[in-house]
């Protein structure tokens, strides 16, 4: 899917990521809203004796929740920005990073020998 998105024109390649706290809030939002819609829909359907009313209420609640959680609203889901570490391989840190990676390879070899 990411490959297909990369083929889109640049104006459509919008970032939709949200931070971890935002993901937690988004999941809790849709769980609560849809469960409430299911309960309300059941009682509305039972009162009017129309199953279609119950299903329509759940579908409407799903659309409403989609408007809330699908777009990456910055005031809801981007309040705790993720702090990424600086990538290895930048200028000034190549020598140290290569030695550390070589040390890590040696450590892995020693560990595998021990387990055998």
């Amino acid at each position, binding site marked *: *899917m990411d490959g297909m998105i990369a083929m889109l024109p640049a104006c459509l390649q919008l970032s*939709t*990521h*949200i931070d971890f706290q935002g*993901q937690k809030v*988004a*999941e809790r939002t*849709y*769980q609560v809203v*849809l*469960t409430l*819609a*299911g309960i309300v*829909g*059941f009682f509305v*359907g*039972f009162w*009017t*004796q*129309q*199953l279609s009313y*119950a*299903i329509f209420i*759940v*579908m409407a609640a*799903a659309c409403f*929740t*989609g408007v809330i*959680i*699908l*777009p*990456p609203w910055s005031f809801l889901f981007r309040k705790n920005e993720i702090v990424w570490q600086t990538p290895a391989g930048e200028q000034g840190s190549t020598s140290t990073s290569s030695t550390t990676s070589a040390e890590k390879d040696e450590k892995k070899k020693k560990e595998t020998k021990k387990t055998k």
Partner: protein
Amino acid sequence: MHNILNRANALLAFTLWVMAAVTAACFLSTVFLDYTVPTKLTVKDIKVRTIADYATDEQQADLATLSFNLNVDFTKVFNWNVKQLFVYLVAEYNSDNNAVNQVVLWDRIVERANRVVMDEVNVKPKYYFLDDGSNLLKHQNVTFVIRYNVIPNAGYLRLVQSTDQISVPFPTTYTTSRRS
């Protein structure tokens, strides 16, 4: 949940889960209700004639024609889990060949509405009342009963028999008229 497709997938899956739960609750709320209704059924103008039936050994079979009146109020059967009813009229009798014969004479699909009353007068059967022998003549009691399938929105296909049935004796002579 880090991109929009992931969130959309999670939302859709949970929505379908909730819809399934609501439908299951709808089924549970209607499964123990009583779906029987009384029916007013009368059968008249019964005529029995014998016709050539080349598929059997006897080469002759009894064919009965009749006309019936039916009055049923189905309104209380319909609830939010009932889509339609499939109502049919059955003639049951025993004979020397078979312990039980059941012949469906007429059926009708009844769809949901606010008030559903079936009032049929002088109806001719849809399907032939053909015996596999000559057992209809002089029969003491042929039982006519209305049964219906309750077709739900969610759940199993329920078969209900109405509380009333009538038994009629059949004519003792073959009819000579050509008109049924």
